[in-house]
């Protein structure tokens, strides 16, 4: 074994020891996680996600936690299908900015915790899942009796919606405007849930 071999072997040994050391790093502190959740730093809004997709953010990794059938029917552009098991194992770049969503928010929130426990810093989920994407990006609606602020917000939402092939609707009855944590009303009203299902069907017909 000559000098060059010895040097190369030492470099390999140092890099390998360093690789093992990256796994010994401080584990995520539960108190810190609780603070992040309290400060609502654990989620991202659908319009914010839409803007990042539009900007072609190269660090963005979107994972869809629903079933393959639901994914086939409709998913957020550039999202990849993933299970909780895959997210618990799959290596991701340390600098990745991960966004998770499911049908509602439960699975995505669980996946958020898994990835944070694995040491990924930049993870967020859509609090109301695909419903929020449909309600705020694909099919934003403006109530007949909208306030001036709502009208201004609708303009930018409509622009975003058209980019993603959605159908913004203006001047609809107030009860048909989707609501959630972003509005003052509770989410999941029957009329809106039905409208969401119809949107998915409509989008399928358009081949989206």
């Amino acid at each position, binding site marked *: *074994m000559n000098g060059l*071999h010895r040097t*190369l*072997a030492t470099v*390999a*040994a140092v*890099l*390998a*020891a*360093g*690789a*093992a*050391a*990256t*796994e010994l790093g401080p584990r995520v502190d539960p108190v810190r996680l609780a603070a992040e959740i309290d400060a609502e730093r654990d989620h991202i809004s659908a319009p914010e996600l839409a803007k990042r997709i539009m900007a072609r953010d*190269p*660090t963005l*990794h979107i994972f869809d936690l629903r079933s393959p059938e639901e994914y086939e029917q409709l998913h957020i552009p550039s999202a990849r299908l993933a299970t909780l098991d895959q997210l618990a*194992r*799959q*290596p*991701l*770049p*340390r*600098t*990745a900015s991960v966004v998770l969503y499911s049908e509602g928010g439960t699975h995505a929130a669980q996946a958020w915790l898994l990835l944070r426990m694995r040491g990924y810093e930049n993870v967020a989920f859509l609090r109301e899942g695909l419903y929020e994407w449909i309600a705020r990006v694909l099919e934003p609606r403006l109530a007949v009796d909208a306030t001036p602020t709502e009208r201004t917000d609708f303009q930018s939402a409509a622009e975003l919606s058209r980019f993603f092939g959605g159908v913004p609707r203006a001047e609809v009855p107030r009860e048909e405007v989707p609501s959630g944590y972003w509005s003052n009303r509770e989410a999941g009203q029957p009329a809106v849930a039905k409208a969401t299902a119809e949107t998915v069907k409509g989008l399928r017909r358009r081949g989206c």
Partner: protein
Amino acid sequence: MNAPLTESGALGPLGALIMAPLIGFAFGWFLERGGLGNARKLAGQFYLTDLTVFKVLFSALLTAMLGAFWLDVLGVLDLSLVYLPETFVLPQAIGGVLFGAGFLVAGLCPGTSCVAAASGHMDGLGVIGGMLLGVIAFNLVFDRIAAFYDSTPLGAVTLTDLVGVPHGFGIAVVAAVALVGFAVAARIERTRA
């Protein structure tokens, strides 16, 4: 994030077409420089008289493994976009035995047979011919062995996933095995020389 270049779009289809032969030629050149175009040298691996194959291939493995891990940690390479072939335990084990038997008989493997042929060894051309016949035979009987070909699937798994240890620890173990292997190989070669 900018790698893998083909996945991030930094390298278009044309760029990939240009890069592939360049990488291929570089690979062949290094194999030839490592002495792997010589069937006697390769067969020496099986008789423990010449451990060049082990040293060259394990160095490549070690370099790629450490490089990929650290580039991922540094945010240069996105490992989740790197293709991971699926594992089928039994068919691949039998394929490995067949491959090893062929390697021993020919003294060359697919890559090194091309290197041998390119550097003017006629046996290299013979092995390439045999390999092509094997490919044709495999395709002719494929329908009959298709069920076996897809049997005992494990999915796209890595060694560390299978054992259930973090990647970093797995890397340290494989690197330690390789480095000890190099030292043992050097000793064996000295005693046999």
